[in-house]
């Protein structure tokens, strides 16, 4: 029996040393040491049948053999572990340059992305967002912002009028708003100062469509009404807005004229195309006009039911379309209405 044990030991140790992975080791363990039918276990189970003097000797030897096999298993396991650790780079190399598996990839429109920035910026200054009608009356679009029917300024805001067919509406009474300023009176009539309001939205003007003009475009209009609002508040707010939206730019103010503001101020930024050296885009000025603003005209306040002796305010309007064009360096305004994903997936 001792010889049998010795053969088992030699056989087991030889097998163990040859094994290269843990599963095989486990199989060998079961083969020899398995609870019910391990080769060694079966031999050990027969020991009680031996003569008493043999029992002790064989029993001790069997235990030694068992221990030796167990140790060999452990050693081999440790060895394999060590080898694996040493070889992991070689064995488990993958090509990390293979392109990733992406989740579905969508795209938000450049105008949405630009508007998101405008809105988060205006919220920081305490502005609330308001939205109003695009189909508007001549009254709110023009008259209430101090642009009476005979104002020559109307020439620059040629309007699309809605066909009054089948209604009681007079021709020329209802139009598509030409600017977001229609919301100044609407909001002021219904809300009391202090007001800090930002109105983004679509506007429409009759125009010859080309690379820099379109009949539909987006604006945002900010206005503030309170006691003691001054021109320096306007300059400071506009300066902050532009420098946040167009990082690194410089801002300059020019006097101008708008019917709905007095005084009226235009903001210019350093040309983003030439950096101020002068180019065709900025008409060699190095500066380009980006925003119109001013102190809300006392007539506009009065038309909306505010007392201009108590309240003053400022308003500024900027083309969201224009801003998106500057940011993304679009060479044609019509790209913003493109339906082609080859254009839109770039953003």
């Amino acid at each position, binding site marked *: 029996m001792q010889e049998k044990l010795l053969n088992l030991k030699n056989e087991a140790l030889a097998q163990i040393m040859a094994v290269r992975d843990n599963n095989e080791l486990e199989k060998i363990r079961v083969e020899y040491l398995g609870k019910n039918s391990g080769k060694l276990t079966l031999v050990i189970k027969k020991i009680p049948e031996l003569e008493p003097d043999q029992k002790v000797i064989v029993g001790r030897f069997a235990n030694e053999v068992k221990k030796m096999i167990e140790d060999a298993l452990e050693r081999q396991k440790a060895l394999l572990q060590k080898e694996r650790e040493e070889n992991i780079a070689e064995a488990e190399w993958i090509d990390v340059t293979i392109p990733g598996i992406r989740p579905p990839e*969508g795209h938000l429109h450049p105008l949405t992305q630009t508007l998101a920035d405008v809105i988060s910026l205006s919220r920081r200054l305490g502005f609330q967002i308001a939205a109003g009608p695009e189909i508007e009356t001549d009254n709110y679009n023009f008259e209430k912002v101090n642009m009476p029917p*005979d104002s020559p300024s109307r020439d620059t805001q040629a309007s699309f009028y809605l066909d009054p067919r089948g209604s009681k509406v007079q021709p020329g009474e209802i139009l598509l708003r030409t600017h977001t300023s229609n919301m100044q009176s609407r909001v002021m009539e219904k809300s009391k100062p202090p007001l800090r309001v930002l*109105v983004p939205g679509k506007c*429409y003007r009759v125009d010859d469509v080309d690379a820099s003009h379109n*009949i539909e475009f987006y604006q945002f209009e900010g206005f503030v009404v309170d006691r003691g609002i001054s*021109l320096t508040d306007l300059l400071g707010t506009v300066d902050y807005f532009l420098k946040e939206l167009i990082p690194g730019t410089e801002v300059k103010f020019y006097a101008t004229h708008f019917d709905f503001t007095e005084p009226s101020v235009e903001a210019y930024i350093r040309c983003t195309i030439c950096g101020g050296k002068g180019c065709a885009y900025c008409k060699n000025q190095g500066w380009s006009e980006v925003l119109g603003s001013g102190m809300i005209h006392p007539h506009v306040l009065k038309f909306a039911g505010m007392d201009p002796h108590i309240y003053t305010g400022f308003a500024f309007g900027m083309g969201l379309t224009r801003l998106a064009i500057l940011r993304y360096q679009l060479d044609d305004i019509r790209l913003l209405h493109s339906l082609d994903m080859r254009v839109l997936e770039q953003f």
Partner: protein
Amino acid sequence: MPLSWLKEFTEFKIPIGELAVKLSEAGLTIEKWEEKEGDTILDPEVTPNRPDLLCAYGTAREIAAVINTKLKAHSDEKKTFSHDYKTRGIPMEIKIINNFALCPRCTAIIVKGVVVKPSPDWLQKRLKQVGLRPINNLVDITNYVMWELGNPLHVFDYDKIRGKKMVVEEARGGEDFRSLDGINYKLPKDAIIIKDLGRVIDLCGIKGGENTAVSQTTRNILLHVPIYNGTRVRRTSQALGLRSDASAIFERGADPGGTVKALYRALQLVLDLGGGTVGSDLIDIKKDEFRPWTVSVSHEQIENLLCIKIDPQGVKEIFKRLELEALEANGVYEVTVPTFRNDLHIPEDLIEEVGRLYGYNRFPKTLPAGVVPIEKVAYSYDTGLDFRVKEILKGAGFGEIYSYSLISADQLVKLGIDPREALKIQNPISHEYEYLRPDLLGNLLEALKTNLPNFTDIKVFELGRIYQGRSLDKYEERYQLAGILNGERFSEAKGIIELIFNDLGIDSQILPAEEANNAWFHPARTAKIPMPKEKNLGYIAELHPNLLTKFGIKGRAVYWELDFDLLKSLAGKVKTYQPITKYPAIIEDLTLAIPDKVLVGDVLDTIKISSKLVNTVKLIASHEENKTFRINYLNPTKNLADAEVAKIRAKILANLKGEFQIKPKEK
């Protein structure tokens, strides 16, 4: 505007670039100029409120004010007029019947015995510099004086005026008129005209008539400096699509106080360059005296609105540079405004003058100091939800478009909508942009069509306004959120809607909708999202093959649309935490043979409501009529025993059998 002309009235040496920047900052934008024959020609952009800047002397006045140089007085008619302008002998007759509503002032004089010939070189050069073609000395003089002083003038051949009568009146509309440059017009209604004996001799403020124009044989002339109603001139000019230098000035408002000066200036030039003698007294028919007016503004008002510290001397200095005479008493300036500055009537107008000459780029910058408004403003709009939904769609692989609100009748017809029942633009620029879109579907179909040649997986959405209504008496502008996918991908579209609803915390059912718009939607592949009160939140539908064919789209497409205003009103429920139960759930799969036309949605509902202990139930596999449902049983308060689950299962099977004759699949 030639620089040399401006320098006749004010001397300055600063480089042109610097001058342009200074004028632009003060409101007279100069972005372009060109060097031409030793002179610099400026191209100023004059704002509509400043007609006084449409002439050389006014521009020089502005330059002098902005860069603070001295403005030379223009030849004053009383002192420098070198001719005898009193008529000799019997004044020549002219009868002017005026209408003050149309013509608030009319200044005129007759000159007899003039000789028509070419103008001298210096005059011709000036006209060419401002882009005019020299004609003859008399016509050239009127143009020259207009460009110099800003009041438009006209010269009539006196002998051609029939009956020596001039009647200012409104056109009735449709009259024929031939202008001095030989073009025929049909006059629009309400145009201001002058008639002699039955003939229209002047289309006032725009162009003179050929019948009374100066020619080589002209001997006697009537010099005419009128002021016309600007609105009338503007309307007529728009109606005819005809603008002139004169109409541009009248539209914005010619200086009613400047007619006599312009007339004398022209008269002097006529006598100098055309000879002749004065043939009548000065005719000056005017509605009122057109005297300067006063506007008061306090120093406090100026400092409050501008928020700068400026000493009263500085304010007075600025007013003086602008030829505004200011008397100060107790901190209030009483400012006399000359007639050529009709843009200055209220204190704020004067404050702007102080501000722009002080220089806005010298101002400090502040932010509004008051309380940040808390109360929700009227027309308040929550953009947060817009961006949230858009981000979800982006994450689901959708690309966003911004399409035109204006669409063609052709698109409406393809959508099966009668153009007579859509809102229409009266003055469209083309048929392509003539109607307001009543739905986003049409443009999304166009987007699909655009992208089919280049992409295999197309998912596009838009959040935009739609405009619904048959007439302007009753219409609605609403926000719609809609998307399109190529292919037969109903379940994918539905999954996206479920994702949005889950994120926004909206409970909804998505049910079959056989009754939906069959011109658009597939009759058997359309679902609606009904809401209480009969209104649908939206639709998910495979588009009808006929509709796709009309839009020239090959293959199939799935479309979904949501009433975004309604969606927003339902969203915003804050999710609340449910404690994680410590008792284990028991999960088992149940495979059922579902008979034809029995809806899986109903089966799911039936299983779910069979017991409170059914925690969730999902469809996990589907093979022909066999569907496998995974049921998760859970009692949040104790361990579930197998016997309890068996009881629930029995009830589920009984319910399914009772309602739908469904049996478990034989194993």
